[in-house]
């Protein structure tokens, strides 16, 4: 490998490293880098540099494989999150709760026993909840409230920022005509009890408070899904 004496310190340096040597060792030296090497030396240096590109060893590959597997497993576990609960499902009794309403006083789920219940866990700022309130729920309410079905929505405060307030919930009710009781889960009690991962999550409860249907996100069949579940409970 060709070497050349450094024009500043006189140390022999490989041609391909001369430029780097000058910059690192003599940053204040006024050396014209272009004139330090001849054209042929520059071409040689480029060839040598290409040949000296960083090499990967077997040991390195082993470390890369180990680190890649470890990091991948950690990421998959964090994203998949096997510790995340799935919450109560069909056939289970819906956990009871008492929450403040968006108007006055409190509401307790168990006080709705003896009636089928549509229980919606939602957030005013969730776009899917807005679509459900616009396209589905008022029509379900219109057709089933007269047949003894009761409706209760609970806002999971802060699920989608900004946090819902009594005023925003009442505004939501006016806008979409969802004129039933809205509870406010300010402490996260309902969210934790039902392990809510998405809003809206909607439950249809029978007269004993047992979950007859559960929709995570918007009901895929829209009004038809609600009607099918409620008709089954009502025996019609």
């Amino acid at each position, binding site marked *: *490998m060709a*070497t050349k004496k450094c024009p500043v310190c006189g*140390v*022999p*340096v*490989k041609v*391909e*490293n001369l*430029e*780097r*040597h000058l*910059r*690192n060792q003599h940053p204040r030296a006024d050396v014209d880098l272009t004139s330090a090497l001849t054209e042929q030396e520059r071409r040689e240096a480029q060839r*040598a*540099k*290409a040949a*000296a*590109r*960083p*090499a*990967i*060893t077997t*040991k*390195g*590959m082993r*470390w*890369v494989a180990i*680190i*890649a597997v470890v*990091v*991948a497993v*950690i*990421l998959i576990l*964090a*994203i998949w*999150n096997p*510790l*995340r609960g799935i919450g109560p499902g069909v056939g289970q009794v819906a956990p009871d709760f008492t929450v403040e309403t968006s108007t006055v006083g409190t509401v307790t789920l168990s006080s709705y026993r003896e009636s089928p219940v549509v229980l919606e866990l939602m*957030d005013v*700022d*969730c*776009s*899917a*909840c807005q679509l459900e309130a616009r396209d589905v729920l008022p029509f379900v309410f219109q057709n089933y409230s007269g047949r003894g079905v009761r409706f209760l929505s609970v806002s999971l405060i*802060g*699920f*989608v*920022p900004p946090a819902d307030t009594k005023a925003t919930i009442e505004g939501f009710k006016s806008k979409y005509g969802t004129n039933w009781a809205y509870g406010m889960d300010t402490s*996260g009690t309902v969210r*934790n009890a039902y392990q*809510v*991962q*998405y*809003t*809206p999550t909607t439950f249809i409860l029978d007269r004993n408070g047992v979950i007859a249907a559960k929709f995570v*996100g918007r009901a895929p069949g829209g009004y038809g899904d609600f009607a099918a579940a409620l008709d089954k409970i009502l025996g019609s």
Partner: protein
Amino acid sequence: MASGLSRGDLLLLIAVLAVFGAADAAYLTWQWYEAASSSWCDLSSYFSCSRVRASEFSSVGGIPTALIAVAGFLVLLVLVVLAFRGVDLLGPWSLDRWLLVFAGIGALLGLGLTLVEIFVIAAICILCVIGFAIDLGILFFAWRLDNTPLEAEA
């Protein structure tokens, strides 16, 4: 741990970590934009990505912090690719020094955000902490790299 690793090994380790870091940050960015009505990586009310996302610190001027992290990891990746292509110098510094500087900036930002999570938001986003850990790994290997002489140097 990294003793006996060649310059190429260290660069490859940085590249792999940067790819994972970019993927992690990209997932966080996607969640920030697309999944506003879902909660995710929530183990409890303290270990809750949703709570961190809901805070004012999850974005800067409307740009999600995670997107800035994606850009940072991609910069590191580009620097590694340049190093593998035989580029030694970039402006006033060696490429190794640039890697160290960018990894240091990333680790400092990650440290700041982690402290904000602990002391201000009072909630930990696991995926953000993983991103910070990846950054620290890159910083370690970049530091080793900056202290590893070029094999071909006289």
